[in-house]
């Protein structure tokens, strides 16, 4: 028996270690082979990134540099890349990162300063790339101490999508700048659960980048925040609590069943299938919901600005999926060539030619929005103005010590945001009460902040 026991614990050790390592295999797809350098790029499985992977043979043809893709879902990507850069693993040359990671990682010395790299480029190349054409708000979001550390592949803010046919049928009209109170009253009127029609879809899937993003914009516009100037968590403060209660109540009342497991993709599907009347989410979905190949309601989509409540500050987010060079990369010159290819004006033209203007990576370059084809799209003006007016350094009513609209720009926020939204998903399904969930989250967040040295 003793003998069995020691064997057992051996097995248990192996199992726990295997699990805690979080090892996760993905099959890299080889775009092309070449005797010279091969770049390894880790990307997220969003449609725009899949397009990039498909168009990469053009880059290889032009430069002779082969590119190896590792494509992962968002949450897994963060894990893998964080582990790689934090331990200096050097698995990847270029990583797909967002505005959240760039300043934090730049501070830790995990990414290469791109200003230096641009200075080393031949003058003709730098001029052709035209860095000033990249939207200033996005560039600012990808900088640390005034230096650029990543180039945006596509940028986004958030806005309101609605189904014009359903609105017309109910005799309602959506203002260009709606308030959350209006959205709630529309959603109440448009919900008909017996017909499987829901007034609104919003993300309810736990994760700081899932439910956490739209929820935080609601917290901002209700006048709440995550932390005060002393880094004291504010989850139980009146404004924040009111915002969270509003979000969850609205979703419970007028949202589809299974909201607790609906993230960006699931919400997009529900909306594009015509099951929901309103959807407040990323501007990057505009192309897909307007495309008859991916949307059943493509001709009925209306667009409006993201809803506001007490203050317009922080009511719409700023995000840019970007490419950054890992400090441990061994192919820096080749990496720079790819970076400046995938985020160039020429690349945008290439996508427009191959895949149509609806599928062009949005929110990165002024020139995209000056193009007459793109200007003609019904959403392009709202997207441009939302991306340009989102300000991560001034996104809350009260003064706060952090940057970020839909997140808090500190490394601990991944854990804090994810755990808190997990508790809130429990409120969505009725497992816990809001008071209970917020108290748990508050206590845990205080502990995390104390451990990390923000609180004494």
């Amino acid at each position: 028996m003793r003998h069995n026991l020691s064997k057992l614990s051996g097995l248990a050790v192996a199992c726990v270690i295997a699990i805690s390592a979080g090892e996760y295999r993905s099959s890299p797809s080889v775009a092309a082979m070449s005797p010279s350098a091969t770049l390894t790029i880790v990307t997220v499985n969003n449609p725009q990134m899949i397009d990039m992977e498909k168009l990469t043979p053009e880059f290889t043809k032009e430069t002779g540099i082969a590119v190896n893709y590792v494509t992962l879902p968002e949450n897994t990507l963060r894990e893998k890349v964080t582990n790689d850069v934090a331990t200096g693993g050097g698995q990847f040359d270029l990583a797909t990162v967002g505005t959240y990671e760039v300043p934090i990682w730049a501070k830790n010395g995990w990414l290469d300063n791109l200003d230096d790299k641009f200075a080393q480029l031949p003058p003709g190349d730098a001029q052709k790339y035209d860095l000033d054409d990249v939207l200033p708000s996005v560039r600012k979001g990808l900088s640390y101490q005034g230096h650029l550390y990543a180039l945006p592949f596509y940028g986004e803010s958030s806005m309101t999508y609605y189904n014009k046919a359903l609105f017309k049928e109910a005799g309602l009209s959506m203002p260009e700048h709606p308030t959350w109170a209006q959205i709630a009253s529309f959603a109440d009127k448009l919900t008909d659960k017996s017909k499987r029609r829901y007034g609104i879809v919003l993300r309810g899937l736990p994760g700081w980048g899932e439910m956490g993003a739209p929820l935080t914009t609601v917290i901002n516009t209700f006048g709440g925040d995550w932390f005060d100037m002393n880094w004291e968590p504010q989850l139980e403060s009146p404004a924040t609590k009111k915002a969270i209660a509003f979000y969850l109540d609205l979703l419970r009342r007028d949202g589809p069943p299974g909201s607790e497991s609906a993230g960006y993709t699931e919400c997009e599907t529900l909306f594009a299938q015509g099951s929901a009347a309103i959807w407040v989410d990323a501007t990057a979905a505009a192309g897909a919901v307007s495309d008859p190949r991916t949307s059943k309601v493509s001709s009925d989509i209306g667009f409006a600005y993201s809803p506001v409540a007490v203050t317009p500050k922080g009511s719409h987010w700023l995000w840019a999926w970007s490419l950054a060079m890992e400090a441990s990369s061994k192919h820096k010159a080749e990496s720079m060539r790819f970076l400046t290819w995938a985020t160039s004006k020429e690349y945008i033209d290439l996508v427009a030619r191959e895949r149509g203007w609806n599928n062009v990576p949005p929110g990165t370059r002024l020139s995209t929005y000056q193009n007459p084809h793109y200007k003609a799209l019904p959403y392009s003006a709202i997207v441009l103005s939302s991306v340009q007016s989102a300000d991560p350094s001034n996104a809350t009513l009260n003064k706060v010590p952090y940057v970020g609209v839909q997140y808090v720009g500190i490394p601990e926020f991944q854990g804090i945001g994810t755990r808190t939204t997990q508790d809130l998903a429990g409120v969505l399904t009725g497992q816990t009460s809001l008071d209970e969930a917020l108290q748990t989250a508050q206590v845990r967040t205080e502990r995390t902040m104390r451990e990390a040295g923000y609180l004494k």
Partner: protein
Amino acid sequence: MQQGPLVRRNTMQILLVAPAIVYLVALTQAPFAVTLWYSLHKWILTEPELGRPFVGFSNFGEALLHDAIFRTSILNLVEITGSIVVASLGLGLLLALLLNRTFPGRGVVRALLITPFFVMPTVNAVVWKNLLLNPNYGLFSWATDSLGLGRLDIFASAPKLGIVVMAVWQWTPFMMLVLLAGLQSLPNEVHEAALIDGANAWSEFRHVTLPLLGPYIELALLLGSIYILQLFGEIFVATQGGPGSATTTLPYYVYQTISQDHDVGMASAQAVLAIVVASLIASLLLRLMGRMFRPVAS
């Protein structure tokens, strides 16, 4: 008196076994030693400025005393694993008894019943979550809705049950295989003897088959528990440990600590505690089973 040769023989034995032992220790215990070492440090991957200070047992204290979810995750682990093992063992026994009879097409039925075991856990979870249990598009929800019972959203109303159902579907064939092997190895004479003694089908099963099957049930329980304690794919795909922490088991919680908090020290401490919990459960199981079957079997 006999010590001399005995020692010599022992030395020889040890020398012969040594390479294998060293290999085994290096392979299984070295990672454990590293985990132990990390568990005594505070090391957060995303905060390189904090360094990696030695903090003694404070990670353990934190996990055991202040972390409510850690305790919940242990209870969840016991509850979920226990339900899966018991349900799949019961179903497996039923199916094994059926398959132990001869009927036309038995080979095909057996092959079909075994199939779920060869489906990868993540694939299993994706299919169950999206095709069967999805409240909007799922088959089950459609069925309950058509019967006028309303939509079924099992991951919201009973998330643990959802996980258990998926895992039972996967693990029943395993239990069935072990028990079927046991049934087929039982000597025919005892059945005949029972028949001659006038036992009916139930009392034959209760007093002859079941006790003789004891060691196999024991094996199925033990192996099943060891494997199912590590259940991860279903939780990762279907619920991500939620809603709230309703389906956060200990292995999943360790994964969350390392992947979301990037807290190596705390995750290691939790992993070490997970081993303690697993060993406790295993020893409890062994003792329990010894009491249940040994006297009857011998």
